[in-house]
């Protein structure tokens, strides 16, 4: 066959390309014998060209891969198709000094004069692989750091992230999520299972919220309690932040967070409790302050009045004695005595209250004839009543009752003297003693000034005086003592009152 100039030039060019190519080009025959290789390929493998030509291609293959390569080569010859660079497995080649290095190989197939030739273009990718490996290591490190940071953040925030696959009904959660739920991260987690952890008191409203979020396609936000399998109650805050939809717009996944807010809730509850305690203490403080102010006001008035009588009467005794008015000073001596009695009675009230508050009052019930008992009390009260005033005694039921005479007498004297004191109109007073089967009911009814309705609740408070009683002497202790005596007897006291029409006190003592 004649060769043209043009063909010669082409061959020369191809020869130059073969000699100077910066990729390794190796040709081998069907038997795997290297028939040609370019200088770059020889340099790549650390051989001289002469050393390679005539050798089996497997000389360039690491020992452990030779058998495999042999099989691959045979099968390639059976079905020789071009294989492009970067396609297929990661390959390693072996240098003359036995060192292995990564390569990229493309294969093509030709026939020359009946001889089957395989052309391998080989690229040493050591530098690229090193770069890639470094980059992968760097990225892996960054990812690990980022993951560690995320986990730390989740741990600190007691917050787990969650991906809920709506199609499979499976949870995928972060490590912290499993910690919050006190579960092993290998446990399969389903929505149904989560719902079984809901606290019975919260279950209904969480289910309602879930249904609502599902129906409206909204994000789900909830604060609720769960009971873990270990039996711990936890406060959970959960919020979906994202709904993933398929191509048809159907939600397939919900993503969100689950946060353990137990510590926060405990703190909140402690704070609330502290606030309640503080408010209570403050209220008590205010009550004490008000009590103190009422006491000072009452004590001032109640002590200064008899003291004024004592001081002025004693000065008058002195003056009358100086002037020889012997007939006039006697009255003042009796005034002094009466004022001292008044002071003693106030003092006794204080002492009774103190005794009651320190738990020193004894309760000694005994059978008592009620009419005789009432007569003795009325005798004392009649000394206080106005000339035109009467205390009417009504009895019903049995004549006897089991009572502590001292305590019940004090109760009656208190209620009856109040009835007299707050009946400036001199209207009659009723005392009704009703011996019922299982209780003794005493009613004291007056037709006096009454108690303003808005002050009914405060009537048994210490030193309390109703507004319409401020111009009438009194300590505001009497009803407190009565109430405390009845508490000791496990009895009760109540009253009905209408302003300017009168008041009825009802005492009940169990029998």
């Amino acid at each position: 066959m004649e060769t043209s100039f043009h063909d010669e030039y082409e061959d020369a060019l191809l020869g130059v390309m073969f000699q100077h190519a910066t990729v390794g080009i190796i040709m081998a025959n069907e038997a795997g014998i290297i028939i040609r290789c370019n200088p770059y390929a020889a340099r790549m493998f650390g051989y001289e060209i002469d050393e390679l030509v005539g050798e089996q291609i497997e000389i360039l293959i690491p020992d452990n891969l030779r058998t495999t390569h042999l099989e691959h080569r045979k099968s390639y010859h059976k079905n020789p198709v071009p294989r492009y660079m970067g396609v297929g497995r990661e390959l390693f080649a072996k240098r003359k000094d036995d060192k292995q290095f990564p390569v990229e190989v493309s294969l093509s197939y030709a026939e020359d004069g009946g001889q089957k030739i395989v052309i391998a273009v080989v690229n040493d990718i050591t530098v690229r692989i090193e770069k890639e490996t470094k980059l992968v290591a760097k990225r892996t490190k960054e990812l690990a750091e980022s993951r560690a940071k995320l986990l730390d953040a989740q741990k600190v925030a007691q917050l787990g992230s969650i991906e809920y696959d709506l199609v499979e009904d499976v949870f995928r959660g972060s490590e912290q999520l499993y910690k919050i739920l006190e579960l092993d991260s290998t446990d399969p987690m389903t929505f149904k299972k989560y719902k079984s952890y809901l606290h019975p008191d919260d279950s209904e409203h969480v289910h309602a919220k879930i249904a609502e979020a599902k129906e409206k396609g909204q994000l789900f936000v909830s604060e609720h309690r769960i009971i873990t399998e270990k039996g711990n109650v936890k406060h959970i805050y959960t919020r979906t932040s994202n709904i993933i939809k398929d191509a048809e717009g159907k939600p397939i996944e919900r993503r969100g967070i689950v946060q353990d807010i137990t510590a926060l809730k405990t703190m909140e509850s402690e704070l609330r409790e502290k606030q309640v305690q503080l408010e209570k203490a403050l209220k008590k403080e205010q009550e004490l302050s008000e009590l103190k102010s009422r006491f000072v006001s009452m004590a001032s008035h109640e002590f200064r009045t008899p003291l004024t009588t004592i001081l002025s009467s004693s000065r008058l005794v002195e003056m009358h004695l100086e002037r020889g008015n012997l007939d006039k000073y006697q009255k003042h001596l009796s005034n002094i005595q009466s004022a001292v009695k008044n002071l003693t009675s106030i003092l006794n009230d204080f002492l009774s209250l103190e005794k009651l508050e320190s738990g020193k009052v004894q309760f000694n019930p005994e059978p008592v004839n009620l009419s005789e008992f009432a007569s003795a009390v009325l005798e004392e009260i009649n000394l206080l009543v106005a000339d035109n005033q009467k205390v009417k005694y009504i009895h019903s039921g049995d004549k006897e009752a089991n009572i502590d005479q001292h305590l019940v007498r004090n109760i009656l004297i208190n209620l009856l003297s109040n009835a007299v004191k707050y009946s400036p109109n001199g209207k009659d007073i009723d005392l009704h003693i009703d011996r019922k089967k299982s209780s003794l009911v005493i009613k004291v009814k007056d037709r006096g000034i009454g108690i303003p309705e808005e002050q009914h609740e405060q009537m048994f408070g210490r030193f309390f005086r109703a507004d319409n009683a401020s111009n009438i002497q009194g300590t505001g202790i009497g009803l407190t003592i009565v109430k405390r005596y009845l508490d000791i007897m496990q009895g009760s006291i109540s009253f009905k009152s209408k302003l300017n029409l009168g008041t009825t006190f009802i005492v009940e003592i169990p029998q």
Partner: protein
Amino acid sequence: MRKVLLIEDNQNIRENIEELLELSNYEVMTANNGQEGVEAIQSRKPDLILCDVHMPKMNGYQVLEYVKSKPTEIPFVFITSSSQEKDIKKGVLSGADSYLIKPFEIEDLQNTIIKLLG
């Protein structure tokens, strides 16, 4: 003889002060509540008023208010059982010329009256 009106609901105190003032040569008129006191001011024209604070019907402040509403100025002295500052302030701010806290010495009463009546 100067006329002193004493308005006081406590009988013993009223009688004792009356007696003490009479022994000190004052003409004493008495009223046992605020309302009677106002009637006495109208009918008896006292030179000075001694008045308790807490009394039935009309209290001392109301009596003072009445006195202040009239053109004639009558010296007004509260005699009070309260030593609390707020009550004393209230009395003075209402226009009382002086006040005496119970129990008081007869000399203090006499000095207060002399100071106001001259």
